[in-house]
């Protein structure tokens, strides 16, 4: 869906998506890194479980909701990646306490 332009010479940084290491670049947001990874990173909505990907990438639509380092429902498009960051794709409703 997206590829990295050859203009991009930023350093790699590795995050962990559902237990698998994924390469991102320094300065990527979590959502950009997920979309660039080529993996199936569709979340399932809380209401019907329908698959979704980020829609606006600017913090207004909340379709990028993702669990980051154990905290659920974070806006992935507003959070920059960090080395070793643990990402979980949300499927359905958020679990209590997360």
């Amino acid at each position: 869906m997206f590829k990295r332009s050859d203009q991009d010479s930023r350093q790699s940084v590795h995050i962990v998506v559902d237990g698998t290491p994924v390469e991102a670049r320094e300065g990527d947001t979590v959502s950009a890194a997920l979309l660039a990874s080529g993996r199936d990173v569709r979340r399932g909505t809380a209401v019907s479980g329908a698959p979704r990907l980020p829609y606006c990438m600017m913090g207004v639509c909340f379709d990028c909701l993702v669990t980051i380092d154990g905290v659920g429902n974070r806006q992935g498009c507003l959070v920059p990646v960090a080395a070793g960051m643990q990402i979980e794709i949300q499927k359905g409703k958020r679990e209590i306490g997360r």
Partner: protein
Amino acid sequence: MNTTPRRDSYDVVVIGAGPAGLAAAATAAEAGLSTLLLDENAGPGGQVWRAISSTPVTERDRLGVDYWAGADLVQAVRSSDAEIIQRATVWSLDRNLEVGISVGGVSAFVKARRVILATGALERPFPIPGWTLPGVMTAGAAQTMLKSSALVPDGPTVIAGQGPLLWLLAAQILRLGGRIDRILDTTERRNYLAALPHAFAFMTSPYFAKGLALMKEVRAKVPVVTGVSELAAAGDGQLASVTYVSGGRRETIPAELLLLHQGVVPNVNLAMAAGVEHRWDDLQLCWSPVLDRDCKTSVEGIAIAGDGAGIGGAGAAIVRGRIAARAAVEALAPAAAAKLAPMSTFRASLAQAERGRSFLDTLFRPARQFRIPSGGTIVCRCEEVSAKDILDAVAIGATGPNQLKAYRRTGMGPCQGRLCGLTVTELMAQARGKTPQEIGYYRLRAPVKPITLAELAAVPKTVADIQAVVRG
């Protein structure tokens, strides 16, 4: 930079570090006012200059001169005494000018003598069948990824809609080696005629030559279909095709990515939650705050600058930011105002920057069928409520957006109506034979961005706060 505010009160708190907010903060700080600039993103620039301090796209001509024009203003604010906090989410603002800020999962309140809202715009909802499918995004989303991460569309890509941003994005994607298979232009043919009376002002504005050059650049590389009057996305759990109608002819093309855009509208959530009066704008088809010529709102001490004050573009936003800040300086430190350029200079610049806007507003007025959907098309993405669901609720007594919440939960999901509010207002207005002004909008309240209860509970409390709720 990711820290909590250093003080608990400021002369001026500016919310949003796009063109208007940067200009406002620079002006207020220059006059010696204690100034706090709060911004939700990782770096300053807002949407138009997004990632200007960090973009991996280093060859300047790829993003264009208008993008790099922001660098001076960012530098001006950074070298001023204004305190800047990035990744700060403002979730509350009230009539006492208390600002609730969340930074890194911790909330604090600061008090302001003047607040300048520069929360900008967001893309108008584009509720077509299938717009919730993975692979359907806004054009702005693609532009954000392009500017901040040098990511460009790769597989079969369709761009659909209208307006200046669409052509700029297309040019930027092509310059960075990205793929666009087709552009579907939804501009209504009759708009060209309606816009004609405004054409002279437009042709003598800077938009004209820039717009023509961009369209020429894009058309040389991508097939463009004009007069698109119907649009639908389809696929099983993922976008697979786009169907459109142009000139009575229906066509379906394969697509992995569909980028939608039909203009931008003010981001009203924080202003409305603070009690700022808004009116329905019949030309721009959105809610705009009621402002005086100094950008002051109906709430004492709160001003709005930039596209949040009504869409005017980056050039107008900068000037409005300076006007709002100068008005704050005049009120708080009249002697210091003499250091700044006179208001009359700013007003002349604003008139210049707004030249050609009414042409764009008229030409790119989105068509009714792309604003007011029907049948099973989703209106509220968060709560997954369709146009038919809403019309059914109207049929059994829902009178406006706030009653509709009780029937269908529209606008009660995490986006708090940002992606459905305008559609709900216009859909209900049409169904009930009323004007959008009569139908109204969601009653917005803090927190305007979700925060956890734990974060709210951890906000430092004074003895008075505790006594206010403790019995006996």
